């Protein structure tokens, strides 16, 4: 397993009072040579406007609010959380499908936060995305050959033996029949369509792949096939993954490090075994205890932590610690002071005033 360079002073925490421009306590980016991707103080607010002729801004959906982490080459980082936590928005920020409101994104040492479309285009060979829904992420009017070959054409890449040959090699790589070059997406099953999407993503041999819920739309038996495929490809092609998912079992299987998000903030960041073995943030503890395990005999002895209520709206998140409204340990300080993302153990960062599983002072 790869060491976690992100633990070196890269906290990216910002209290609500600070300007959303990326500066903040401990916000210097990690200078670790292994980090392919570094994110500091990343923020995205979606303005909410009112009015027809003159649109006034009345608020903002604070989808992502000052998060920071880094990903080393060849590593897989998992980003987990529930609806409204901002993980999908983070994925789109990393691939620059959205422009950050604040913070920085550094890819291979280069600041890509506010690059123009033209400047970003050559980088799109290196940063690619796998989308969640295999039914809506492929153009139904294009053949498979057209879909997987599009990156070559768009990036004006010359191939040795022609685009068609390259596409057929890609189809073989993901376990599809190269003779299906001229078929349309609707002739394939969900799992096969996801493989087509993966083939398209791999076309230009990217270095970083952001996978947004890559298997959640698939049946259980097909999920395993696609998970194995992603793992094999990582080994074969030296890929780096950021996997966004809500299924904690899948994340545990494929990720080296895991970041837990809640309402736009990063609440815990740790190596996989540390997070699943010794979770420290109360939200992570509740999340892990809520996952149903396929073991009937254990259900009688399970102590599940029941979180009350639903996730608050990101339009109006709770002040200070955003989790305090649902936390069973919340005290006065949680309502007034936002806990910084602090390193409690090597490689294990937690944003909580009263973390779990921590030996007392």
């Amino acid at each position, binding site marked *: 397993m790869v060491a976690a360079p992100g633990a070196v002073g890269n906290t990216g925490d910002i209290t609500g009072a600070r300007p959303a421009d990326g500066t903040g306590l401990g916000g210097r980016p990690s200078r670790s040579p292994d980090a392919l991707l570094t994110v500091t103080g990343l923020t995205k607010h979606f303005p909410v406007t009112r009015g027809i002729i003159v649109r006034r801004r009345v608020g903002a959906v604070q989808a992502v609010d000052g998060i920071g982490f880094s990903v080393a080459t060849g590593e897989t980082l998992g980003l987990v959380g*529930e*609806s409204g936590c901002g993980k999908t928005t983070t994925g789109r920020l990393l691939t620059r499908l959205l422009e950050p409101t604040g913070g920085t994104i550094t890819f291979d040492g280069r600041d890509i936060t506010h690059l123009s479309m033209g400047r970003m285009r050559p980088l799109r060979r290196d940063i690619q995305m796998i989308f969640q829904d295999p039914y809506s992420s492929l153009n139904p009017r294009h053949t498979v050959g057209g879909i997987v070959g599009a990156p070559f054409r768009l990036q004006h890449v010359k191939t040795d033996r022609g685009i068609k040959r390259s596409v057929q090699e890609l189809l073989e790589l993901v376990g599809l029949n190269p003779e299906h070059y001229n078929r349309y997406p609707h002739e394939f*099953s*969900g*799992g*096969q369509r996801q493989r087509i999407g993966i083939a398209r993503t791999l076309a230009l041999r990217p270095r970083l792949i952001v996978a947004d819920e890559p298997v959640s739309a698939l*049946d*259980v*038996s*097909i*999920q*395993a*096939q696609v*998970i*194995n495929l992603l*793992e094999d490809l990582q080994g074969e092609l030296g890929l780096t993954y950021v996997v966004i998912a*809500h299924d*904690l*079992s*899948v994340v*545990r*299987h494929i990720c080296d490090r895991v970041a837990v998000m809640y309402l736009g903030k990063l609440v815990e960041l740790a190596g996989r075994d540390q997070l*699943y073995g010794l979770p420290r943030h109360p939200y992570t503890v*509740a*999340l*892990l*205890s*809520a*996952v*149903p*395990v*396929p*073991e*009937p*005999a*254990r*259900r009688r002895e399970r102590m*599940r932590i*029941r*979180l009350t209520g*639903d*996730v608050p709206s990101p339009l109006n998140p709770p002040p200070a610690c955003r989790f305090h409204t649902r936390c069973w340990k919340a005290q006065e300080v949680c309502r007034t002071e936002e806990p910084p993302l602090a390193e409690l153990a090597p490689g294990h960062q937690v944003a909580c005033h009263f973390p779990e599983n921590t030996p007392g002072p």
Partner: protein
Amino acid sequence: MAADTADPAAEPPLRTDPGAASALLVVRDLRIHFPTDDGLVKAVDGLSFTLERGRTLGIVGESGSGKSVTSLGILGLHQGASARVSGEIWLDGEELVTADPARVRQLRGNKMAMIFQDPLSSLHPYYTVGNQIIEAYRVHNKVTRQAARRHAIDMLDRVGIPQPAARVDDYPHQFSGGMRQRVMIAMALSCDPGLLIADEPTTALDVTVQAQILDLISDLQTEFGSAVIIITHDLGVVAELSDDILVMYAGKAAEYGSAEDVFDQPGHPYTWGLLASMPRLDRDRDERLLPIKGTPPSLINVPAGCAFHPRCGYTDLTGGRSATQVPELREIAPGHLAACHLTADQQRTIWAEQIKAKP
């Protein structure tokens, strides 16, 4: 021996079946076929199971297994020329497939109710949740509007909606996903049905909300004494909630038994495949998942013999019968049935030596 009658208010003569006296729901050889331009889709093809009062049955299967079609069939929602339903469904001693649709409508919502997968699309957006619960209650009970409204508020309170007297006049879009699902549960339980069918009740929900809803269903089942059928593809959910499990594949039952039996000693290669292909939080992390090769079959061209045989790794042990003979659902241990040509001994050996004992 039809149960139709000109006067819907009169109790129609019931077909009775002595064997079904104790069980709340008995399904025998249910077949639901849909004729389409491409051919006959055999969504459910010979399904049989029973459900006792107060117990929970989990129906597990992937897309195309026929589990949702089964539940809609029990409720009698496949009306008209679009479906061919045959077989027997006995609810509390009354047969439903041959019953008059008016009679089934009386039972629907009253004696049997359903919770659907996506509450946002299952609740009517134009009516308040109170009105939707009141409507369901008043169709089956002669009560005043005020009494029905009190009942609706009471139901919302029972399912854990805060400030029910105020929220009874809210519209579905004013609730979050978890709250909407609770509203659906309130609607389903408003007439105190003996049978509750939950079709993927938590698939659209976050995992912490899912935990709340599963706990709620379990608590309400104890409180109301209903029998519950929970339909899902999530083996974890099924393990949490079910007493018995029915594994479906290609419209037929592959395995049926208590939850302990099916998880500890599964007797069908498909169940082995499902259990082996899932990443699990409670086990050591495996280096590689073992997916079931191939894809679920077309329901128009179901494979001959055992529908699972193209994906099964043990067909060579059955002497070629997998490709020609449909396996019967037979007992491999007391109360534990599987539809497989492998003998019970072969199954136990394979499970113990090859699959369970992975390092």
